[in-house]
């Protein structure tokens, strides 16, 4: 019985990969063997669940390329903690998904192995950076996938592909075995088509890990309990100022419609203000690039991955390896990060950004005094054409306008599909909550799913589920 469902996912992944390019590696042999081992053994909470994993999360025995030539077919000698926990619960990893190089991008066009295509329209991007995971879930290849979210890299592709995408509270999930991009912002996130699946996977992977000092010692509830129940007395914050300039009219209308649905379900809608939200992109692209320039210093051609040939001496080997191994966006961010941290600029950029980060964090603390969750769009537009923004990095960064604040403040965020545009492209809304409020976000998503189930299926579809 497990074998059949795993075989289905593998076959779908294989058959659709020419069209979607969602997978960088499909582990047919390993996954089927694992399914067979599970038959008759003690069944875990996730026994037989097929899961796809973004290629920046280490799975022992499989490659971890991070979508980069510099790691190539690196085989990590250990499992990420989230993978260890998934496998102990009986989940089966069927493969590694394509992503923007080192999770840097909002369209998946920065992968060294070619862009992922959106299952709703293959001329459009799936979003990024976890685009392969989002596309795999949207196309019905797997019910669940893992991604990482540093500035929206789970929520934005979830929105563009019409699936759920959760970025938990900072410190909820272990980052051990997640290749570091910006350590104070990174969190492992979950994609699924049903809220219940997000909840049961989070219950398994969340919690303190001695290998990651930034995981918090906060008890992990059973997130499946409490998914149902009425919303009377729940206060949802509506930040009117975020529904203005730059927001697509169809997205705006769809999200406001969702607000209406919540009102009908008994929730109270309250106006909130996040006065520093408009500065979030500027803060993010200082802090994230600064941390990246430091984290990516380790890729030097000595211990693993690619090494450039014909270097006469050590420093030249470092420089050639990094020049040839990294793609343009990664280099751009390393350069920006090095620039903002360099002598004479530190106070003007990095320190200033950390101060404004405090203001953004305080905006949320104040807003959550009067509400239990905040609703916003997840992305300013539905999926855009492949190639449209590749030459304009700043325009690409502005895609993250609604998502980066959660990473800067450390609060959880969940993207929920809520309709299609006239071009039949998915639209999502985002729920943000106080620290550790995943139960309320999941309940809100589940209630929405109950009354407004998202039943449309993309053109490219594995045709089951």
């Amino acid at each position: 019985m497990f074998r059949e469902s795993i075989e289905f996912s593998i076959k779908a992944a294989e058959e659709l990969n020419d069209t979607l390019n969602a997978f960088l590696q499909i582990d047919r042999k390993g996954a089927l063997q694992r399914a067979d081992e599970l038959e008759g053994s003690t069944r875990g909470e996730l026994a037989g669940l097929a899961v796809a994993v973004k290629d920046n999360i280490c799975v022992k025995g499989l490659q971890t390329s991070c979508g980069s030539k510099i790691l190539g077919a690196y085989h990590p000698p250990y499992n990420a903690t989230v993978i260890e926990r998934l496998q102990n619960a009986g989940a089966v990893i069927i493969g590694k998904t394509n992503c923007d190089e080192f999770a840097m991008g909002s369209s998946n066009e920065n992968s060294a192995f070619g862009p992922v295509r959106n299952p709703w329209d293959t001329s459009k991007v799936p979003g990024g950076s976890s685009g392969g995971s989002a596309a795999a879930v949207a196309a019905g290849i797997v019910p669940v996938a893992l991604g990482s979210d540093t500035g929206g890299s789970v929520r934005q592709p979830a929105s563009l592909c019409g699936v759920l995408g959760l970025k938990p509270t900072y410190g909820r999930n272990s980052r051990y075995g997640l290749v570091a991009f910006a350590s104070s912002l990174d969190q492992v996130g979950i994609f699924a088509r049903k809220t219940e699946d997000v909840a049961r996977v989070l219950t398994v992977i969340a919690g303190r890990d001695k290998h990651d000092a930034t995981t918090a010692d906060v008890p992990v509830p059973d997130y499946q309990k409490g998914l149902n129940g009425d919303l009377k007395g729940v206060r949802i914050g509506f930040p009117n100022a975020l529904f203005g300039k730059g927001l697509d009219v169809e997205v705006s209308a769809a999200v406001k419609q969702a607000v209406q649905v919540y009102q009908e379900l008994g929730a109270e809608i309250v106006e909130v203000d996040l006065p520093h939200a408009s500065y979030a992109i500027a803060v993010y692209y200082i802090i994230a690039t600064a941390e990246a320039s430091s984290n990516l210093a380790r890729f030097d051609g000595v211990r693993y991955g690619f090494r450039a040939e014909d270097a006469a001496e050590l420093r030249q080997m470092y420089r050639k390896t990094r020049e040839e191994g990294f793609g343009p966006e990664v280099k751009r961010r390393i350069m920006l990060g090095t620039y903002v941290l360099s002598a004479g600029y530190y106070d003007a950029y990095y320190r200033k950004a950390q101060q404004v980060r405090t203001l953004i964090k305080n905006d949320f603390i104040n807003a959550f005094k009067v509400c239990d969750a905040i609703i916003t769009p997840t992305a300013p537009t539905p999926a855009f054409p492949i190639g449209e923004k590749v030459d304009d990095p700043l325009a690409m960064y502005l895609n993250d306008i609604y998502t980066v604040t959660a990473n800067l403040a450390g609060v959880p965020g969940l993207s929920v599909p809520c309709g299609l545009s006239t071009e039949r492209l998915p639209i999502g809304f985002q729920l943000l909550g106080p620290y550790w409020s995943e139960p309320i976000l999941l309940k809100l998503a589940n209630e929405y799913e109950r009354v407004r189930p998202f039943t449309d299926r993309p053109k490219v579809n594995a045709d089951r589920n």
Partner: protein
Amino acid sequence: MPISENDIAKVAQLAHLELPDEELKIFVPQITEIVSYVEQLKELDTRNVEPALGGLTPEGERTESSRPDEVIACLGQRTALAEAPAAAEGHFRVPKVLT
């Protein structure tokens, strides 16, 4: 502040990137545009604001992360060298350090 090709070349050197001229020419206007965008933070008065030390929660900050100072098993030489582009005699081999 205008950013010159020289500035970017210097940053590339600090970041251990050997940028060819054509890449340098693409990066200069792009980085200039991004830096001038982030300059908007200067509008904000932050004289009395503490910088955020990461996105840490109060619960995260209270979490005790020290561990006993005990020897535990590690990867081992063979595993640690298994992915190295050049390994020899139980070591990572690199090009000449002194020239």
